[in-house]
Each structure stands twice: as structure tokens, then as C-alpha cells.
């Protein structure tokens, strides 16, 4: 059952198109990821859904859990960079932001265990670390008991430990029935968290499905990666019967449908004529699909 249904959404900044008629729906209780490189339209989409930006064409419809159309939803926003008043304390921010809603809720107390802020309640916002600020931002997104949470690159520029903590929080919120839409350019984040993913590029949605299906549909194959002591031109691999060889950051890679005798022969031929220093063969990932669809290397 959908909570939001978006169809034909077009957004232009002056004459520049940011969104070119995108359509997707988000289901109740799922984690939905908008994955794309910088400038693909992820944040614009999210800000339109949050009511922060207007759009030129298209339709957005909201539904309750029974499938009845609603005028709007209670939303909880988490921005890429947390934005709160520097000289208010954590306690004050929670108190005042709770009161800015028509139906204030005290239920946020139950989320204190989720974030590590209990000993920071009387600290001013400016004295919190980046990770603490983002956790506070998540806590403040819950003060109105929202129907849906919008996270714009929630773990951007955070260290790996804090990123995992943010992922845990997102998973816990899902387990409590919250619907979450988040944007990210971290493929592993989308793969680890999302029930379904839309891959955006240049204002268009290239595919929407769950990560496993996307991999199956677009790249259900094996990926061979290797490095050479003496680099050679990628076209020279045609002599081994390899098509679609790519070279990035010192690593050659190509895909094959299955591990069979032909692959083994290719590897044997290559090792006889070239000095292969390291070779790995693995299942394709969402990153491979992302690179294939968008033509851009993912962030890591």
C-alpha cells in the first residue's frame, strides 16, 4: 500500500531542468532510497516532497494506511547538514521544536535510548560533534510523531562508526513501522538499508526496484577485477575475446555471465601474455549496476 505516489514530476530552475518527469511510489513502512550522483535531482525531489520547493508539472498524492487519499502527511525532516540555533541546548531544542507543531507530542522521550545524547541534554548545539548533531537532528525529526521521515544524505561526511550508528537508528525506526525515504550517493548505504531503490541520473529515474532485483535485472553476472604490473590499452584485451573491459584507478574489470571453462581459458591466456599481479572474481554488486546505468563512479 502506497503512502506517497509521485507521477510525472517536473522541476525546472529557470530554463534548466532538474527533474524530467519522474514517477515512483513509496509504500507504508518501507525504507526507500533515492540513489544518484551529485546533481542528479535527489535533494530537489526530497525537498519537493517535504513542501520546501514548488514543482512545474506532475502530481503528488498522499495516502493513509487504509489507502484513503490524504491532503498531506506529518513529516520528519533530516537535512544533509543539521541546521539548528547554535546557542540553544539539546534540551531547549527538543522542547521548542516539539511545540512548533499543531499537535505537540512528548513521545520523543522513548527515542532517547536510540541516540547517545542523554548526557548532552544541557550542552549547547555548537558544542556537539558532527555525529551528535546528526543524531539530534534525527531525534528532532521525531517530535511530531511523523507519518514519514525524509533523510537527505543522513550519513554524509560522518566517520564510519557514526555512519553505522545512523544506519542502526534508521533500521530501528523502520522496525517501529516508520516509513523512511532517504537520499544517498553511497551505494553501500542504499544496498544495506533500502527495501527499494530508485537510481536517478540527470533528473531521470533509471530504475526502481529492490536492490537484489536491480542487480539481477541489470547485471546478474560475475565481475573479474585484476591489476597489471605493466598497464596496457583496454582495447588490446579483444585478442582474448574480452568485450566491455574497463579501467579505473589502476584496476581492469569486466563481467561474464557465469564462471565456466571459457572464463578460465581467458584468464589462462591473459596470464601467459601479461603480468597479472592480483585477480579477484566476485558477484556483481549494486555499484556495478549504478556505474553501468549512470556512467559514473560511485562515492565510497
Amino acid at each position: 500500500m502506497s503512502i506517497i505516489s509521485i507521477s510525472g514530476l517536473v522541476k525546472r530552475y529557470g530554463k534548466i531542468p532538474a527533474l524530467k518527469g519522474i514517477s515512483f511510489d513509496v509504500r507504508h513502512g518501507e525504507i526507500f532510497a533515492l540513489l544518484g550522483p551529485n546533481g542528479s535531482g535527489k535533494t530537489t525531489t526530497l525537498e519537493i516532497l517535504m513542501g520546501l520547493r514548488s514543482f512545474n508539472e506532475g502530481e503528488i498524492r498522499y495516502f493513509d494506511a487504509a489507502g484513503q487519499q490524504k491532503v498531506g502527511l506529518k513529516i520528519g525532516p533530516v537535512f544533509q547538514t543539521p541546521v539548528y540555533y547554535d546557542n540553544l541546548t539539546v534540551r531547549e531544542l527538543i522542547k521548542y521544536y516539539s511545540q512548533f507543531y499543531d499537535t505537540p507530542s512528548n513521545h520523543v522521550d522513548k527515542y532517547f535510548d536510540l541516540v547517545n545524547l542523554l548526557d548532552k541534554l544541557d550542552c549547547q548545539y555548537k558544542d556537539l560533534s558532527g555525529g551528535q548533531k546528526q543524531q539530534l537532528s534525527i531525534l528532532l525529526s521525531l517530535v511530531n510523531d511523523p507519518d514519514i521521515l525524509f533523510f537527505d544524505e543522513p550519513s554524509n561526511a560522518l566517520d564510519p562508526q557514526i555512519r553505522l550508528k545512523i544506519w542502526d537508528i534508521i533500521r530501528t525506526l523502520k522496525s517501529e513501522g516508520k516509513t523512511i525515504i532517504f537520499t544517498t550517493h553511497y551505494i553501500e548505504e542504499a544496498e544495506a538499508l533500502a527495501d527499494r531503490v530508485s537510481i536517478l541520473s540527470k533528473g531521470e529515474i533509471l530504475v526502481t526496484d529492490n536492490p537484489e532485483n536491480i542487480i539481477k535485472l541489470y547485471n546478474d553476472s560475475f565481475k573479474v577485477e585484476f591489476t597489471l604490473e605493466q598497464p596496457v590499452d583496454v582495447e588490446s584485451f579483444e585478442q582474448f575475446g574480452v568485450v566491455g573491459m574497463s579501467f579505473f584507478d589502476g584496476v581492469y574489470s569486466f563481467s561474464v555471465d557465469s564462471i565456466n571453462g571459457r572464463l578460465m581459458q581467458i584468464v589462462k591466456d591473459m596470464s601467459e601474455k601479461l603480468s597479472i599481479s592480483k585477480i579477484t572474481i566476485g558477484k556483481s554488486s549494486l555499484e556495478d549496476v549504478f556505474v553501468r546505468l549512470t556512467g559514473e563512479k560511485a562515492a565510497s
Partner: protein
Amino acid sequence: MRQLANFFIMQCIIAYRSKTALFWSFLYPLAMLVLMLSVFGDAKGAGVTGDDPRLMTVTGVFVITIMSGGIFALTTVLAADFQSGVYKRLKVTDLNRFHVTIGLMLRQLIIIVLGIMLVTAGAAVLFSVYPNGNFFSVLLLIFIGSVLFSSVGIIIANLCSRPQTAIAIANAIFLIMIFLSGSTFPKTFFPDWLAVISQTLPASYLFDLIESQLFYGESLLENSQDFLVLSAMCLIAFGISVKTFKWE
């Protein structure tokens, strides 16, 4: 109403903890009072007559306090907050532009009233200058001036996409107003053409009305035309500030 009250209280706490706000709201007007009473204390040379010519200088400091608290302080703070995205986050709550603009104006009103009380006390204690006039009429003028110039501050912050531009425009308007309204130099110094321009400025109306209270001890009724023009300017500026409030 609850949302407005909470936004207003939150803004008061923020201002109380801001060293910049405290400087511009209290120390700056007090410093202007000491400086101006020391330099321009005796305005008789400029053809000013009355019980105590120094009251004209105090009037000028009142107007400077209202304008710096309204235009300058609000533009500076708001432009920075727009850029950082604080208001973008607030837009996603159930606060509306009335809550925000009225909350900000009420905060500035409190700050301006406290600043003027400090200036009045400073004038009395340091220079033995005691203003005339009806307390409530002066308070009403401070209210109208505060809303008017706070609205101007909000409009500037809204119309400029960069904080630096907003602050530069606020500075330019602030300086033109304080020099041409009579707040720093008696208007008797001005050539005729400049006096005509000066008389169109909102700060000039505010200065003349407060002067009529503090210096001449007149009632607002005696200056009803100027009072109505100032009130109309205030209403128009307030309307534009609410209408143009764009959150980021």
C-alpha cells in the same frame, strides 16, 4: 498562539546568549549617547531652542537605538540564519510566516525597549538629562518604530540572496537614515533640497514625533498627521515583510 509564544521565547533566549546582539542592542546605543552628548551636547549653536537642548541628542539616540535594533540587528542575524538553513528547517514545522515575523518583531521590541530604558537611565545618571513627554505616547512611538524598522530588516534579509549583500544594504539604509533624519545632525544644517528629501524618510517622521514628545512635550494629537503617515508606513512595511518572507 502557543507556537508564536514558544518561538518568541526561544528567540529571546537566543538573543540573550548572543554577544553580538547584546553589543548592538545595549552597548552601542549607550556608547552613542555618551559620544553624541559629549560632542553635540549643546545644540543651541544649531539654532535649537527649548528647555534642555541636549534632549534633541537623546531623541537622536532613541531613533538610532530603534533603527539599529530593527534594521541592522535583524538583517544581520536573519540573513545568516537564512543561509545556514535554520528557517528552512522551521518551515517544515507547523510555524507559519506570521508566527515567525511577529515573533522576531516582538523580540526586537523587547530588546529595543530595554535599550531605550538603558539610554534614558544613562542620560539621567551620566548627564542629568531628563526627557519630557507622555510615557505611553513615547512607548507607542517606540512600538511603531520598532515594528517598522524590524519589517525593513526582514525585507532586506528576504530580498538578498547573500548575507554580505544584505548587511551592505542594511548599512547603507541605516547610515542614510541616521544622517538625514536629524538623529545625528540637526536638520537646520541641511540645505533646502536635502531637507525636503529628509522629510520623506520614515526615520525622519519617527525622529520628529519622538522629538515632539521628549523635547517639546507635545501630545500625539498635535502631530496627528505625522503620526498617521508613520503608522501607515509601519503597516505597509509589516505587510511586505510577511508577504515576502521566504524562509531561506
